[in-house]
C-alpha cells in the first residue's frame, strides 16, 4: 500500500505472560499475543531476526470480546500475520486522518450539506474489509466515508465527492451520503433503507450461486425500523447469506439507545437469527467476528447478526456538537481508554511488529498521504455549470426520456438533439 513499513531493525521482545492492566491504562482487558504460534504460557524465544509481514501471529482475545445469542461465539484465539495487523493499523489511521480532514474542509465550507463522521468507529470498516474479499458486498448508512475508502476508493476520490467535484466517486452528483464504489452500495440517506437493500444483495449472491455474502450495516437508531424486521424475516426464511451488522454507537443522533429501544441488546433483535455482540473498539475482535460471520453465511447457514459496540467522538453530523446529550467526560473517557487506533498500536508494539518510532512514522506518513490527497481533491474541478450535465444520469445513457425539463420550459433538454428542445 502507500505506507512503507520499516521493519528491518526492530527486535522481538515478547512477554510470555499477560501484561497487567494497570500498566497499560486501558479500560478493557487487552488481548495477549504470542508470535510464531507458541502458547502464552511458554516463554517466547527472543530473536534478533528480521520480522517479515508473513510471520504468523496468534491473537488471544479477552473473553469479553464476544457474547453469543443462539450461537457459540467465535474462538478467542486465531492466527493472522504481522503484515495484516500492520495493514489494519494503517487503514485505521488513514480513515481517522481522512475524517479529520473532512471536519476541517466542512468548517472551511468546502463541504456542504450533511457530513457524518466516523471518528472513533474506524475499526469496524477496517475489521470487516480485512475479513472479506472483493466478491462480497458491503452496504451501510450515511456514515460511510471509511467504508468507501476500504472498499477501494482512493482518499482523493472520496474527498472530491464530498467537495462536489467531478472527480468524486459519484462525479459530484451525490455528496457525502451517496458514495458508491465497486462492491459498495452506499452511502444511503434514509435511515434503515439500506437493510432491505443489503438483504437484496445477499439474495443476488444466492441467486447467482456465488460464494459471497452481504455485510449490511445499520445503527442503533435504525435498528427499530420495521423494514429491518421485514428483512430479518426474509433472510431467515430464504436462508440468505447476509450479515446484519448493528453499529451500536449508543446514540441515534441525539437520542440515547435506551430512550429509543425497548431492548438495547441489539444482537438479540434477530430473534430467530443467531447473534454475536462484539467489542467494536477492538479491530482484532471485529476481524475475527466478521470472518466467522462470513464463513457462516457462505457455508449456507443463513443470516447472522453482529452487534459492534462502538462509539463516535464527534456529533451525529457536523451540525451537531455532540455534547448536549452526553457528557464530555464520557467522550473523553472513550477516547483515552478505548480508542481503536491506540489499542492496535499497543499490540503492534507489544508484539514487536513495530517500535514506537515506527508507529509514529506510519502516523506521519498517513497524515502526509491524506494531506496530499486533500490537495489533489481540492484541485479537482467541479462539474461544469451546464444544463447538459444537470440532466445527465437521470436515466442510463442511451435510454433517456426524450426530454427533461429545467426550471422553465425554455430549459427543456432534448437528448436526441443534445440541446434545448424549445430554443433555436
Amino acid at each position, binding site marked *: 500500500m502507500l505506507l512503507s513499513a520499516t521493519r528491518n531493525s526492530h527486535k522481538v521482545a515478547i512477554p510470555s505472560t499477560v501484561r497487567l492492566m494497570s500498566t497499560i491504562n486501558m479500560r478493557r482487558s487487552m488481548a495477549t499475543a504470542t508470535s510464531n504460534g507458541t502458547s502464552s504460557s511458554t516463554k517466547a524465544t527472543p530473536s534478533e531476526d528480521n520480522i517479515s509481514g508473513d510471520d504468523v501471529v496468534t491473537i488471544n482475545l479477552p473473553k469479553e470480546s464476544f457474547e453469543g445469542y443462539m450461537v457459540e461465539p467465535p474462538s478467542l484465539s486465531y492466527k493472522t500475520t504481522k503484515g495484516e495487523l500492520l495493514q489494519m493499523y494503517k487503514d485505521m489511521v488513514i480513515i481517522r486522518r481522512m475524517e479529520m480532514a473532512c471536519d476541517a474542509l466542512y468548517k472551511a465550507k468546502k463541504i456542504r450539506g450533511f457530513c457524518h463522521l466516523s471518528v472513533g468507529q474506524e475499526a469496524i470498516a477496517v475489521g470487516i474489509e480485512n475479513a472479506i474479499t472483493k466478491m462480497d458486498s458491503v452496504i451501510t448508512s450515511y456514515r460511510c466515508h471509511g467504508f468507501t475508502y476500504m472498499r477501494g476508493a482512493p482518499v482523493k476520490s472520496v474527498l472530491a465527492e464530498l467537495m462536489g467535484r467531478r472527480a*468524486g466517486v459519484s462525479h459530484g452528483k451525490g455528496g457525502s451520503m451517496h458514495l*458508491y464504489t465497486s462492491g459498495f*452500495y452506499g452511502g444511503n440517506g*434514509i435511515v434503515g433503507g439500506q437493510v432491505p437493500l443489503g438483504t437484496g444483495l445477499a439474495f443476488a449472491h444466492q441467486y447467482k450461486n456465488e460464494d459471497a455474502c452481504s455485510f449490511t450495516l445499520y445503527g442503533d437508531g435504525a435498528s427499530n425500523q420495521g423494514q429491518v424486521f421485514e428483512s430479518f424475516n426474509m433472510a431467515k426464511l430464504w436462508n440468505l447469506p447476509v450479515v446484519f451488522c448493528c453499529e451500536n454507537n449508543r446514540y441515534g443522533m441525539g437520542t440515547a439507545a435506551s430512550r429509543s429501544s425497548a431492548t438495547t441488546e441489539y444482537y438479540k433483535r434477530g430473534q430467530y437469527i443467531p447473534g454475536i455482540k462484539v467489542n467494536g473498539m477492538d479491530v482484532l475482535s471485529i476481524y475475527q467476528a466478521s470472518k466467522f460471520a462470513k464463513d457462516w453465511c457462505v457455508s449456507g447457514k443463513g443470516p447472522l447478526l453482529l452487534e459492534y459496540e462502538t462509539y463516535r467522538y464527534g456529533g451525529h453530523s457536523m451540525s451537531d456538537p455532540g455534547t448536549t446529550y452526553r457528557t464530555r467526560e464520557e467522550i473523553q473517557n472513550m477516547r483515552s481508554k478505548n480508542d481503536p487506533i491506540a489499542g492496535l498500536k499497543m499490540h503492534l508494539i507489544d508484539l514487536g511488529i513495530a517500535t514506537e518510532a515506527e508507529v509514529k512514522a506510519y502516523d506521519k506518513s498517513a497524515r502526509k498521504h491524506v494531506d496530499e490527497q486533500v490537495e489533489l481533491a481540492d484541485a479537482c474541478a467541479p462539474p461544469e455549470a451546464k444544463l447538459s450535465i444537470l440532466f445527465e444520469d437521470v436515466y*442510463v445513457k442511451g435510454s433517456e426520456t426524450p426530454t427533461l425539463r429545467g426550471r422553465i420550459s425554455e430549459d427543456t433538454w432534448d437528448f436526441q438533439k443534445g440541446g434545448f428542445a424549445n430554443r433555436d
Partner: protein
Amino acid sequence: MSFKVPFIKKVVQSGTTLTSPMRQSLPSRIISCRMASSKTTMTVRDALNSAMAEELDRDDDVFIIGEEVAQYNGAYKVTKGLLDRFGERRVVDTPITEYGFTGLAVGAALKGLKPIVEFMSFNFSMQAMDHIVNSAAKTHYMSGGTQKCQITFRGTNGSAVGVAAQHSQDYSAWYGSIPGLKVLVPYSAEDARGLLKAAIRDPNPVVFLENELLYGESFEVSEEALSPDFTLPYKAKVEREGKDVSIVTYTRNVQFSLEAAEILEKEHGISAEVINLRSIRPLDVEAIIKTVKKTNHLVTVESTFPSFGVGSEIVAQVMESDAFDYLDAPVKRVTGADVPTPYAKELEDFAFPDAPTIVRAVKDILSVE
C-alpha cells in the same frame, strides 16, 4: 414441467371492413383496433403472462417477486403457470411485507439482477414508496451514473369495482412526477405485451400501471406483437382518428373514450380523436400538440384525483407550447372525483369517469347542447 400456453383465439375475417359499434361492458368482448386479414385475439392477462414468460426465458437475470405470484398463480392469475415452467428460483412468493421485499428487490437490481416486482395493487406500493423513489429512481443519478438499477414494478392501479377507498387510488400522477422513473400505462393486449417487454428490458426503474378490469378484456393482436422480441416505444397511439375534438387519455379510460366517441358521432355528428397515451413518463407531448393542432379542442380523461393530476400536467404542457395558439376553447379535464372512493354503487358511479361524462365534457367545450 407443464407450461400453459396463453389462450389465443384465432379469428379469421378476410376483406371485412371493421367498425367499432357501441358495446356493453362484458367480460370478454372483442374490440377491433385495426384492419387485418387474419386476426388473433388475446386477453390483457395473457398478454402480460406471455410477455413475462418470454423475458424470463430470454434472460436468466430476470425474475418475478411478489405476493402470491408463484404457488397461487397470481392474485389475478397474471403469473399463472410461470412457477411450473420456471421454478422457485425465478418466481418468488413473498411475505406480506411490501416495504421489505421491494427494498430487497431493489438491492438485487443494484447487484445486477432484473427483478419484476408485482404489487397486488399499487395501493400497497405506498408502503414501499421510499424504495421505489429513493432507492431505485434516484440512485443512478446520485451515483453519477455509476450504479444502475434495472427493475420493473407492476400491478393493478386505479379503481376496480366496489373495492372502496383504500383499494381504488390511481397513482399515475404521483409516480409520473419522479425523475429517474418511467411510468407506463398500457390499455390493450398489444400495449401490455409490447410495453411490459420494453419495461423489463429498460435499464431504468419502470413503474408499470395495469388495470384489474382490463385483465379479462380481449383485443386483437398483430402478428408482429406475438414475436418474442416485440417491444413498443413509449409513445402515444391514435386509437381513433377524428377532427373536431381530441380526447387524450390512458388505461381503461381509453375504452370509455372510444364509447364516448361513438355516442358523439351517432348522436351529435361530432368526430372525436382518441389518443391512448400509453406512457405517463415520458409524456408524449409531441402527440398531444399534434392532435390539438388538428382538432383545436382538447379533453383529458384520467382516474386520478382531480388536483395535481395527469390532466393538470397536460393542460400546462399545452399552455406552454405552440399548441396553445391552436385552441378554440380552454382545455377540459375529466378526472376522478375529489373523494375517497365510496362503496355503494350509486355513489361509486360518481367517483370515476365514464362515457356519458366524457360526452358532457366534449359537448361543453364545443358549445353543443
